[in-house]
């Protein structure tokens, strides 16, 4: 287990005042909030900062943490000394987060035992509907065209015979219907948290997210493809092969096509009612002048075509 330097995470000195710590936390929380930040590590950073603040904002926990000494460096292999917390009394206050996966092993080893997070539920005569759960599921664009089945690991809180809440993992095989879009949700009735007493089970909401694709960009149900063509194909018109998520097609390039032009393949986007379209964005690829023959062809063009690409610029 690695030692975590909470002061370093918060960017404050070890003798920072509680106010300085609070200000540092608020600033970092805004910066790394997963709903605000586009940083791919934002969620991990946000949790790390939250954990650091959980300890440093509470004078009791901070004092206990400080007692470990300043000699520890972040990332060092760490085992808490025996009875390290003797003489400190942790009250449960302020620890409201019930998400047991939210804190690091380091945090759990120091503060985990002192707090009883498992609430005894199931008082007689008390019924409540189970909570709704939310999860993300990553699929490929091709899955949206054809439909797919995905296995999802879920952590389910359950009650043991003594009335403690324990977490069990369970796998759910979910059918992803064809035609789903980025950000769309699927509701699985009765797959959320179990109800209390005779309460109903909650629902599970799955949010669809596409893996980035190396060929296609997706906007709603429309799909975009950059297609390179040779200058003569663009100038004279041609029929060329173009990939689509459903397989290659023959695409007609009209004569006089310019770079950046969009050719629309109606109904070849993500299926649906109505289906999306596939847009082919034309890119001009220049043949390299890497042989005498190629160079001669370019020289011939330069001589025979009175072409000034900068005419629009007035020069």
């Amino acid at each position, binding site marked *: 287990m690695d030692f975590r330097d909470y002061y370093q995470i918060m960017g404050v000195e070890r003798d920072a005042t509680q106010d300085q710590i609070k200000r540092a936390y608020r600033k970092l929380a805004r910066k790394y909030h997963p*709903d605000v930040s586009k940083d791919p590590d934002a969620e991990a950073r946000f949790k790390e900062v939250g954990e650091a603040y959980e300890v440093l904002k509470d004078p009791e926990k901070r004092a206990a943490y400080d007692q470990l000494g300043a000699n520890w460096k972040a990332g060092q292999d760490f085992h808490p000394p025996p009875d390290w917390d003797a003489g400190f009394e942790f009250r449960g206050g302020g620890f409201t987060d019930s998400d047991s996966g939210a804190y690091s092993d380091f945090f759990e080893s120091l503060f985990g035992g002192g707090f009883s997070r498992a609430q005894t539920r199931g008082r007689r005569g008390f019924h409540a509907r189970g909570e*709704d759960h*939310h999860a993300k599921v990553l699929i490929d664009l091709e899955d949206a065209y054809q439909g797919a089945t995905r*296995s999802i690991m879920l952590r389910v809180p359950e009650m043991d015979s003594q009335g403690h809440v324990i977490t069990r993992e369970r796998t759910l095989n979910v059918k992803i219907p064809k035609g789903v879009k980025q950000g*769309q949700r699927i509701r699985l009735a009765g797959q959320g948290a179990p109800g209390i007493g005779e309460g109903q089970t909650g629902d599970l909401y799955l949010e669809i997210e596409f893996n980035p694709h190396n060929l296609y960009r997706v906007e709603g149900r429309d799909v975009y493809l950059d297609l390179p063509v040779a200058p003569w194909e663009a100038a004279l018109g041609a029929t060329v092969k173009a990939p689509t998520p459903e397989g290659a097609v023959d695409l007609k390039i009209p004569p006089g096509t310019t770079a950046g032009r969009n050719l629309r393949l109606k109904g070849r986007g993500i299926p649906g009612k109505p289906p999306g379209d596939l847009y082919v964005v034309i890119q001009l690829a220049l043949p390299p002048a890497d042989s005498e023959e190629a160079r001669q062809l370019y020289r011939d063009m330069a001589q025979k075509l009175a072409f000034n690409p900068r005419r629009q610029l007035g020069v």
Partner: protein
Amino acid sequence: MNDNIVSGDVLDETITLTIRDLSRACASSAEWIIELVEEGVLEPAGNSHGQWCFSALSLHRARRARRLQQDLRLNLAGVALALDLLDEIDRLQERLGRIGER
């Protein structure tokens, strides 16, 4: 492995959510959803609370609002402003992706 494949409802344009669905999915009260509507964060169809119909997009917005409010201690006006600005950033980044990059 494939003995219990479950399938659900895709929340597309044809599906609407009630105020109960929405408050459960956000682990919030119905009153909080009403406050979001009053702040203009959510725009349901229908006249009275009981008849309100929310789009699937409302779920995304309401959950985002919940997290922002809890984690950053924003009031509802601040949440509404943050959501509008985040939407604007999404729109601009989409446009940027369309014209540039490659």
